Structure formats: structure tokens, C-alpha cells
């Protein structure tokens, strides 16, 4: 297996992200030219399906299938949305893509939008990313000047318009139906599926929503072929992934590694291991909604797999050492989910609120027998009855912590 393979980060630090000329000099927009001059949308879709690329936002849904279901819709008006509403705690991969290589993202958006036959593409950006919004606006302007965007792209029959839509700081708007609601001018609450956004999406038209990191893979796949992409990384989910390693490691940063890499390799080789004088306790994979991995499970492979015990999520890895107070972490998780619960369904709105209250009591050392029973009830309710996955996310880490660290959490004597 090639270890040094780089797809998304290949230009990072090598080119000036503000100059379109720099990106073109290293082979940028060649994929778009290839797509327009040599391929049909159906052929390009075939390549993406061959590649086995799956969504990098967390759920890992096959990108090819999503694009296909939008492509085969007969509606004249279709939309493509790039989901850049990154607000999972500990995750800043999409921000890094915009900072270091925004044109690659834009090229991917243009190609995918043309594949599904969209007349307009939206980029939904987190409202807190002021600097990145400015970068994206500049980049879209540059691409328009070069006729990679706009009417009759590169002399072909394709037209595409891109609009940057700035969010206003709501975690739930990263969920695709909530994101669509937000652009439509509704409260950013998730909608019931079916109908899926691929059939009835933005303004009632078929819509494909893709995560920014997924999109950044597209130029490579079009240029070098889906077959070659499928040989990288693990069999179940090919390709590379951006991992954000943070916490008690020597070099916290964003790393690109093939999917299927072991967690221990990521921590020890990529991030330089645990800091000196600190002892590894556990790692949280996938941001605040991720599961906890203990020392004995460090050898697990990280990939998108429906049957895997630990879902990869956004790719954020938080390494926690023994000096950390678990109560502060519990409170951090719960105050996050309490704030971000949209309030649409009762189990999530009340469940996250009550767990937050209990987490506060735990921190103050005022826990009662009643709370211990209540925790179990609330976790079950969150896991099984909430409207959208946010409730399940809220229960994941808390449940894992309660199961594994009872002694520390309830301050029992050893």
C-alpha cells in the first residue's frame, strides 16, 4: 500500500491559495476540461461509482448513488449544495481545505453540479468562518473571469451559477434536510424523510448535498479514473481521509491518511504520539458525537463501514490523557448538545437538557441515586426515540463514558 499518497492535501503549502494561476500551473481545472471535452455526465458518474467514494461528512453514504438518483430525475431545475457548515467540535478539515486549496474544492463543485445537471450550486458556509467566506467569494470571482463558471463554460453548452450562502451558527444545519430548510428561509430544523432531498429538495426540486471534503476528491477521480481511486485505502471505503488529531499529542494537526489506517498508527506515527509525561487514557473518534476508544481497542482500523463498532464520523480524533477531569468533558458534551438541540422533538430537547443538568450536578459532586437511574432512562430515550440523529449523537459519548468510567464519574473509592 502506498503510504505517501495524497489527494486532498497534495497542493497544501505548495501553492498560493489566492491565485488561480498557481492552481492552474499544478494541473488545476484539467479535470473540468477533461469532463467538458471528453466525457458525458453519465460517463463521469460511472467513474465516481467505480471509485467507491463515500460521503465524508460522517454518514458515509456512497456518493455515486446519491448523484445518480439526482441525475435520473427529469426536473429541469436541480440544485447542488456544498455542505461547508462545519461545526462539530474538534473538526476543522473543511476550513483547512478552503484555507489551503479553495480552487480544488470549487473545481469539484462545478464538476459535480454539471454531472447532476444542476442550474445552480450553493455553498453553505458556517457563519463563524468569516475569513473563509472572503476566500470563497474571491475564488468564485476568479473562476468566473476564466470562464470556468457562468454561461457557456469553456465554450460548451453548460451553464452554472454559484451562490455562497452564509449560515448563522447552528450545528443542526449540517444535516442536509435542515440545511435545505435554512436556505429556504425556514427554521433550520430537520425534515421527515422520505421524500429524500435527491427527489424533493431545495425549493421542492431534486438536490444533491455533498460534504466539502467529498467534493475535493472529485477532480482527482475524474483526472485519474475511478478504478485507480478504488485501489487506495480499504476495500469497504476506498480513498484517503482527512484526520484531525488533537488533544494530548505532540503534533496536533490535520493529516491525510488512507482509510483503513489503524488508530494507533495515526496517533503514534502521524501525530508523534502522546505528549511526554502524560499517559493515554482514551480517544474520542468523530468529534463530540463520537464514541470512546480505550487502549485495548487502539488497533482498530478506521473506515466507513456500517457494521463497524466505532463510526468514523467527521474524522476528528481527540486524545485524552489521565490528567483530564472526565466531569468537565461530560459537561462540555452535554452543554454543546443542549445548546444545539433544535427543539423540534421532545426526547432530544428535554433529554439533552436533563443530561446537562445531571452533568452539572456530577461536576459539583451532588449526584443522587435518582440521577443514576435517570441517566439510564434518558440515554435509552435519546438513542431510540429522537427524530433525527442528533439525539443519538448526544447519547453516544455520554453512554460510553458511563459504561467505561463508572468509578471516576461517580467518584467511587477504588
Amino acid at each position, binding site marked *: 500500500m502506498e503510504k505517501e499518497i495524497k489527494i486532498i492535501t497534495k497542493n497544501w503549502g505548495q501553492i498560493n491559495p489566492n491565485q488561480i494561476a498557481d492552481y492552474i500551473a499544478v494541473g488545476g481545472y484539467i479535470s473540468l476540461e477533461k469532463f467538458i471535452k471528453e466525457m458525458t455526465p453519465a460517463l463521469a458518474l460511472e467513474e465516481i461509482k467505480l471509485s467507491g467514494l463515500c460521503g465524508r461528512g460522517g454518514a458515509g453514504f456512497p456518493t455515486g448513488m446519491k448523484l445518480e438518483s439526482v441525475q435520473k430525475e427529469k426536473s429541469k431545475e436541480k440544485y447542488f449544495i456544498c455542505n461547508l457548515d*462545519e*461545526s*462539530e*467540535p*474538534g*473538526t*476543522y478539515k473543511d*476550513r483547512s481545505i478552503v484555507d489551503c486549496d479553495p480552487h480544488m474544492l470549487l473545481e469539484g463543485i462545478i464538476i459535480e453540479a454539471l454531472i447532476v445537471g444542476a442550474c445552480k450550486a450553493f455553498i453553505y458556509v*458556517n*457563519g*463563524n*468562518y468569516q475569513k473563509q467566506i472572503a476566500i470563497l467569494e474571491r475564488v468564485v470571482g476568479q473562476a468566473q473571469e476564466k470562464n470556468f463558471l457562468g454561461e457557456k463554460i469553456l465554450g460548451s453548452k453548460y451553464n452554472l451559477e454559484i451562490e455562497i*450562502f*452564509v*449560515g*448563522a*451558527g*447552528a*450545528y443542526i444545519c449540517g444535516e442536509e434536510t435542515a440545511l435545505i430548510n*435554512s*436556505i*429556504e*428561509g*425556514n*427554521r*433550520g430544523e430537520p425534515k421527515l424523510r422520505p421524500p429524500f432531498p435527491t427527489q424533493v429538495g431545495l425549493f421542492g426540486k431534486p438536490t444533491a448535498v455533498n460534504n466539502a471534503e467529498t467534493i475535493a476528491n472529485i477532480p482527482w477521480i475524474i483526472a485519474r479514473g475511478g478504478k485507480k481511486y478504488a485501489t487506495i485505502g480499504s476495500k469497504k471505503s476506498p480513498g484517503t481521509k482527512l484526520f*484531525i488529531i*488533537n*488533544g*494530548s499529542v505532540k503534533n*496536533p*494537526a490535520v493529516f491525510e491518511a488512507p482509510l483503513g489506517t489503524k488508530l494507533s498508527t495515526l496517533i503514534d506515527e502521524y501525530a508523534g504520539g502522546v505528549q511526554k509525561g502524560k499517559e493515554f487514557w482514551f480517544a*474520542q473518534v468523530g*468529534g*463530540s458525537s463520537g464514541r470512546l476508544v480505550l487502549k485495548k481497542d487502539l488497533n482498530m482500523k478506521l473506515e466507513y463501514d456500517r457494521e463497524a463498532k466505532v463510526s468514523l464520523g467527521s474524522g476528528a480524533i*481527540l486524545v*485524552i490523557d489521565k490528567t*483530564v477531569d472526565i466531569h*468537565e*468533558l461530560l*459537561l*462540555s*458534551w452535554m*452543554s*454543546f448538545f443542549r*445548546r*444545539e438541540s*433544535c427543539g423540534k422533538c421532545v426526547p432530544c430537547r428535554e433529554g439533552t437538557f436533563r443530561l446537562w443538568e445531571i452533568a452539572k450536578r456530577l461536576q459539583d459532586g451532588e449526584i443522587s441515586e435518582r440521577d443514576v437511574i435517570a441517566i439510564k432512562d434518558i440515554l435509552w430515550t435519546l438513542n431510540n426515540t429522537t427524530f433525527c440523529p442528533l439525539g443519538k449523537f448526544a447519547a453516544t459519548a455520554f453512554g460510553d463514558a458511563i459504561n467505561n468510567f463508572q468509578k471516576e464519574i461517580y467518584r467511587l473509592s477504588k
Partner: protein
Amino acid sequence: MTVEKILLEFDPKPKNILPVLKKINAGFGYVSEKDAQKVADYFLLPLSKIYENASFYDLIKTKRQPPLVIQVCSGANCAVKSAYGVISEIENYLHIKAGDDFNPKVKLEVISCLGQCGSGPVVIVNGNVFTKVTPSSVDDILRNYV
């Protein structure tokens, strides 16, 4: 600048509701019920439709904000670097409680991740971002604002 002027910059299409509310918020610090009514009239929608939007998002306020707003990130990455120590230090320094909405002079808000996880804990004072804050550096930061 008036709300009417802001409204005229946008077409009355549903997708412009959020941008309009954000612009009003940026200009006046919050969206009052009166302003929300003007937006509703312009978009030909009921007031509830506008207000449910305004009250939903973190970056849009529906109440006048005090002159000093301090926000501290409590995402897991900041929390393991003692963000809660910073919060309690600020609480002690200013004699306030986090989340208190009724103090007319100062507000301490605990917020979610801003994507600055590499350099936590993150504190924002009236829009100015401070990174790698420790409980002992709280005094240095807040001295200039109090």
C-alpha cells in the same frame, strides 16, 4: 442606516430572509420585534415566520446586548485544556454567572466550536478573538475592557 434601506437591498424571496436578519443584526446589534415586523411586511409573511428564524440561530440576537459580551468556547477540545477553569475565573473576576441574560452591563456566554480547536481555549470579547487563554491570563485580557 435604517431597516428599510437594508430591506431594499434584497429581493423579497424566502432565501433572503436569513441574510436580511443577519444584516439587521450586524447593523443594530439585535433584531427587535418592530424590525422583525418590518421584515415580515416586506416579505409578505406572518411575523411568526420571521421571528422563528431570528430566534433560532446563535448569530442572531432578539434582545439588546450589553456593551460587554464575553464568549468562551467549551467544545471538547477546549474543555480538555481547562476552558472551565477560564470560565470560572471570568465569573469570579466580573462577579457574574455564565448564561445570565439579565445583567445590563456584561454577559458571559458559553458557546460551541468555532473551528479554532488547534489553539484552544478560545475566548471572544466583543468580537475580538483570543486564543490559548489560561485562567491566569484572564486578568490581562479583561483589564482593557472593564
